[in-house]
């Protein structure tokens, strides 16, 4: 009986007595024709390619009874090697988004009405035909996202066939400057492969490569291999950025510079290296005019520090310097990146850690300058038909100065192929929804040599058609050709894509689909660097506000295309630990001067416009600089307005009064040298509005207050202990004999040194375990249900603020404080070392929640809802918890049961690696390990006995089943836990 039934009974006992309260009979429908691929109740996996960003990671989708319920990284795919980021997981919520277009839509004025496919296609076809007949094919424009595969080729064929303008591949983060710099230095208009895994020292100039830069999951894998402490070895990572980002937090040395001076820093380092003889002398010309002292002054980085970094960088064989991020997207971006290229070239890294040949697909992005030109053409009335591909949202992602929306209103027919409503579909006259990529055929080549194949992982749940198929139909109608004839003879996109695979895949289609693609190594191409003087002076900024505006892509939402996923909104930003809302990061000193406290709404004004956001004062941002994450959008589900009868559990916040998009503050003009978007372009002023919009900050304090939750050890000690072993500490003393585990004892280890705070594990846990979404108000009030949270603990001194990321979840204590206080045995210890939680036995006294020193037990304060069709995504192997029930991490019990079942089928015991928890599986840096502690040979048991191992709050004596490995801090960090604190 559930609560609703109970309520019915207490209110209408008489009615219940007569009605009989018998559960309604349920129908079960057998298949009409058996499906060979599917056994009801048994999951099948389909490999495809993640299209949430241009990174192109391989994913495998778990299909249960015809519905995809979980995504995982494809272990065979060379880009992500099994890992998947938070956004990748959240793709499922795009698939099952309640607001997905049910079918084609037509907008007249502000009224949007459904329309049939034939009618909708007719409108578009007539327009195309009319324009062609009028000889105005150039008035047709097609904008897609980066389509590095067959679809891109098909789109180009289409534009040629109808005589339209060349297609634009619009990516808000297009790395035009990187290409331009490579053109300058190496004469190649390409983005190379960066071999993080082979670098000994990594020097990053603002590149947020663990968040969004190029291919973050792949980089994280490589970074973990070079940087994580293993057997006494660990690489070093130095990061130069004006604010402490998530990437900066993983750095051994974070150098806070003045925005836009990265090029100067790079050149200064190169100069020091050349003067010290640690770099190729022939590059001396490039740095002839550089004065290290002046550079130090301009950048705010002391000479001493520059020398230290230079020494470290020069000593490493090989090293790797990269540049990117917002700070290197200003007017001097090409110069800055050229300087970094020279640094790499002068220290012999090109060809080793910087490899041209396996070039990135990002090289195929249309520069922003062309997009700006198109917008201008639209504004001039030169465009009469604008076709916008799925996931393209120029109305949101293009700089506010461009006024894309105004330009789009001048176009007589705007057609969008997006499957979800957004700022751009609001401008479209006709929407022809594309199938979600999980429902589609396709392919994607993220870099040379890697061709990921996409196949439908389930049947479309909405009346949507693949974009390619729609265009093929359209072309046939327009050209009046029949199927099989003409320039586009294929009937469907599936046919087209399979014919496109014919030469590469051949007869091995099935194998290739299973593997997720065709992968081969591409040999690096030799390049020579052109030495020329570089003027990397800081860029001139637009406007006269007091603060340099840094608009940076968000780890969770990228350019905003993932913002509709409630998982990503619910999981906080790792740095601020703020969920659901955006904020403006203001230097704490300036905030204090202006009387701004956290949560005060602040008006940020630039020459291009103004936005209002809650403030987040921070001590880890360069002075006179403010930072706002890009991508925070609200896509509220269509909800019934709340009233007394409505549930308070409605988790989704309403749209805020003004936009939160910092891109709206940017000027239209592209960067002259590269044609990219100048994200570092304006100075902004901030004023307090007087309103308050408190942020849902989940972490009360980043100060550990002497708790030693996240621990660290210095590299020297760690090395010594790794080589010589560590003195065994005393076994914990207990009143009772230790527990006996007859078969297995499951346990986990988390390497704090490896964790980069990317939140992938938290989102994977949401997806795997049917963890509900609570919304901003509830999250702000400590009622989140997330089983796993990634905590940020600030350490270090004011000069050297450092962060430690610590994923925290149920510790599965052997002497668990939560268990003996439960009056009904809902919490108990299993004989496999887990803390069981029996939901249907739970009465909801919440005593366990109080007594858990880690506070990882989560309570269902309401019946949190999964608005249809998001409920289809629910994992059928995990109970959906009812109101009034306590829940927590189960170490993915359902996976353990499945693993044991599988082993028993094969009449053997579970082997190490058979079972992976959802968080472990997805971790890009493999910071999480799960396994049988009883097996001495298992990875988890070995790590548990590592000298770095510790338990959180060990002194309480809970004897957790989860062991943490201390973070290894490098030379520059102080020897002892400091007295000073980082940011709060």
């Amino acid at each position, binding site marked *: 009986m559930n609560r609703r039934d109970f309520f019915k009974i207490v209110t209408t006992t008489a009615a219940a007595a007569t009605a009989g309260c018998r559960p309604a009979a349920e129908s079960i429908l057998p298949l009409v024709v058996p499906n060979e691929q599917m056994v009801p109740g048994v999951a099948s996996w389909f490999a495809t390619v993640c299209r949430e960003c241009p990174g192109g990671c391989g994913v495998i989708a778990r299909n249960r009874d015809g519905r995809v319920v979980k995504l995982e990284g494809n272990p065979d795919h060379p880009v992500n090697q099994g890992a998947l980021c938070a956004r990748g997981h959240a793709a499922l919520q795009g698939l099952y988004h309640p607001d997905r277009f049910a079918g084609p839509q037509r907008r007249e004025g502000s009224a949007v009405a459904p329309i049939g496919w034939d009618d909708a296609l007719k409108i578009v076809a007539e327009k195309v035909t009319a324009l062609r007949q009028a000889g105005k094919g150039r008035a047709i424009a097609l904008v897609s996202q980066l389509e590095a595969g067959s679809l891109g080729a098909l789109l180009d064929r289409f534009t040629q066939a109808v005589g339209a303008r060349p297609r634009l591949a619009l990516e808000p983060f297009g790395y035009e400057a990187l290409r331009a710099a490579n053109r300058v230095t190496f004469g190649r208009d390409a983005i190379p492969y960066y071999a993080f895994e082979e670098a000994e020292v990594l020097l990053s100039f603002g590149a947020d490569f663990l968040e969004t830069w190029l291919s973050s999951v792949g980089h994280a894998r490589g970074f973990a291999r070079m940087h994580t402490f293993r057997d006494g070895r660990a690489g070093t990572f130095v990061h130069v950025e004006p604010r402490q980002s998530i990437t900066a937090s993983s750095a051994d040395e974070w150098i806070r510079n003045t925005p836009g001076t990265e090029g100067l820093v790079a050149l200064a380092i190169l100069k020091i290296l050349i003067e010290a003889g640690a770099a190729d002398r022939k590059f001396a010309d490039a740095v002839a005019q550089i004065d290290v002292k002046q550079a130090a002054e301009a950048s705010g980085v002391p000479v001493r520090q520059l020398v230290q970094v230079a020494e470290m960088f020069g000593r490493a064989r090989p090293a790797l310097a990269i540049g990117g991020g917002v700070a290197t997207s200003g007017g001097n971006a090409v110069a800055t990146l050229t300087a970094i290229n020279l640094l790499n070239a002068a220290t012999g890294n090109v060809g080793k850690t910087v490899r041209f040949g396996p070039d990135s697909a990002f090289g195929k992005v249309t520069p922003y300058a062309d997009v700006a030109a198109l917008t201008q053409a639209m504004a001039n009335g030169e465009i009469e038909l604008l076709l916008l591909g799925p996931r393209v949202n120029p109305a949101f992602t293009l700089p506010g100065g461009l006024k894309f929306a105004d330009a789009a209103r001048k176009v007589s027919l705007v057609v969008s192929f997006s499957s979800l409503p957004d700022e751009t579909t609001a401008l479209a006259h006709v929407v022809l929804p594309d199938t979600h990529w999980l429902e589609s055929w396709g392919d994607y080549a993220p870099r040379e040599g890697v061709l990921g194949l996409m196949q439908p992982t389930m049947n479309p749940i909405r009346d949507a058609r693949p974009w390619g198929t729609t265009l093929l139909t359209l072309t046939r109608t327009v050209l009046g050709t029949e199927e099989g004839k003409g320039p586009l003879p294929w009937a469907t996109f599936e046919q087209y894509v399979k014919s496109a695979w014919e030469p590469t895949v051949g007869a091995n289609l099935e194998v290739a689909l299973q593997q997720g693609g065709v992968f081969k190594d591409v040999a690096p191409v030799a390049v020579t660097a052109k030495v020329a003087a570089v003027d990397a002076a800081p860029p001139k900024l637009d406007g006269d506000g007091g603060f340099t505006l840094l608009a940076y892509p968000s780890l969770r939402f990228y350019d905003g295309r993932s913002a509709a996923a409630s998982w990503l909104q619910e999981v906080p930003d790792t740095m601020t630990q703020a969920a659901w809302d955006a904020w403006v990061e203001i230097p704490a000193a300036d905030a204090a001067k202006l009387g701004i406290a956290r949560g005060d709404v602040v008006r940020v004004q630039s020459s291009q416009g103004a936005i209002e956001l809650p403030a987040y004062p921070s001590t880890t941002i360069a002075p006179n600089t403010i930072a706002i994450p890009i991508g925070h959008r609200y896509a509220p589900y269509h909800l019934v307005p709340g009233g007394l009868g409505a549930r308070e559990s409605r988790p989704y916040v309403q749209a805020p009064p003004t936009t939160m998009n910092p891109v709206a503050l940017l000027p239209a003009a592209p960067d002259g040298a590269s044609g990219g978007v100048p994200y570092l372009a304006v100075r902004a002023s901030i004023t307090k509005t007087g309103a308050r919009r408190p942020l849902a900050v989940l972490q009360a304090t980043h100060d550990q207050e002497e708790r030693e939750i996240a621990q660290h050890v210095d590299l020297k000690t760690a090395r010594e202990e790794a080589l010589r072993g560590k003195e065994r500490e005393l076994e914990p003393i207990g009143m*009772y004999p230790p527990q006996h585990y007859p078969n297995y004892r499951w346990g986990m280890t988390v390497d704090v040194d490896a964790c980069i705070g990317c939140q992938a594990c938290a989102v994977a846990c949401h997806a795997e375990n049917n963890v509900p979404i609570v919304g901003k108000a509830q999250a702000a009030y400590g009622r989140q249900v997330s089983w796993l949270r990634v905590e940020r603990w600030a350490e270090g001194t004011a000069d050297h603020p450092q962060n430690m990321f610590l994923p925290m979840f149920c510790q599965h204590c052997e002497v668990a*404080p939560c*268990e003996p206080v439960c009056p009904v045995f809902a919490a*108990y*210890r299993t*004989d496999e070392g887990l803390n069981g939680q029996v939901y249907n036995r739970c009465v909801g006294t919440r005593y366990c929640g109080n007594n858990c020193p880690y506070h990882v037990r989560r309570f269902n304060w309401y019946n949190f809802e999964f608005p249809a069709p998001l409920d289809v995504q629910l994992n059928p192997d995990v109970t959906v918890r009812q109101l009034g029930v306590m829940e927590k991490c189960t170490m993915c019990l359902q996976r353990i049961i499945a693993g044991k079942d599988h082993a028993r089928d094969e009449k053997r015991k579970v082997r190490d690696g058979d079972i992976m928890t959802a968080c472990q599986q997805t971790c890009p840096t493999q910071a999480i390990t799960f396994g049988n502690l009883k097996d001495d040979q298992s990875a988890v048991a070995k790590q548990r006995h590592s000298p770095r191992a510790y338990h959180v709050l060990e002194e309480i004596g809970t*004897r957790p089943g989860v062991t943490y490995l201390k973070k290894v801090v490098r030379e520059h960090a102080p020897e002892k836990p400091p007295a000073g604190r980082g940011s709060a």
Partner: protein
Amino acid sequence: MPATTETVLGVFAHVDTTVRALEELRAKGYHDLAVYTPIPVHEIEDVLERDRPVSRVRLFTLIGGLTGTASGFLLTIWSAMQWGLITGGKPVASIPPFVVIAFELTILFGGVATLIGLVTLAGLPRFRRSPTFDRRFTNDRFGVAVHCAPERRPSVREILQSAGADEVRP
């Protein structure tokens, strides 16, 4: 006992007169007495309880209490063994916490048993009012009912009256 007995009731207003009557009656060998008092009176008890054993209620209490202790331990240990679930690393049959349950059940069973003892020994509930009862006895009057052979009635009346009864009947 003769086939028929008669009951003589003396109603007193004072404790000392009641006690005097009782002493007299006992001295004369009348032991079949029923004394009604609005409150328990020590002096009367002293007279009447000289030859009676202490109330057996306490036996009920003892047995009830011990049963409670035993069932407390039995219930907790036996039910814990049903599944043998471990919580907080403590043994399945962990005695210290079970002492609490045993203690509470000791008190509970002891109390209930005392109540049962009281009800049975005091002859409660009484559905019919005994003929010698007078409603003044719960207010401010004391009653002495003497059961005697019919032929002894006058002498009993005499004793009661001379002791100072306000009223003697029949």
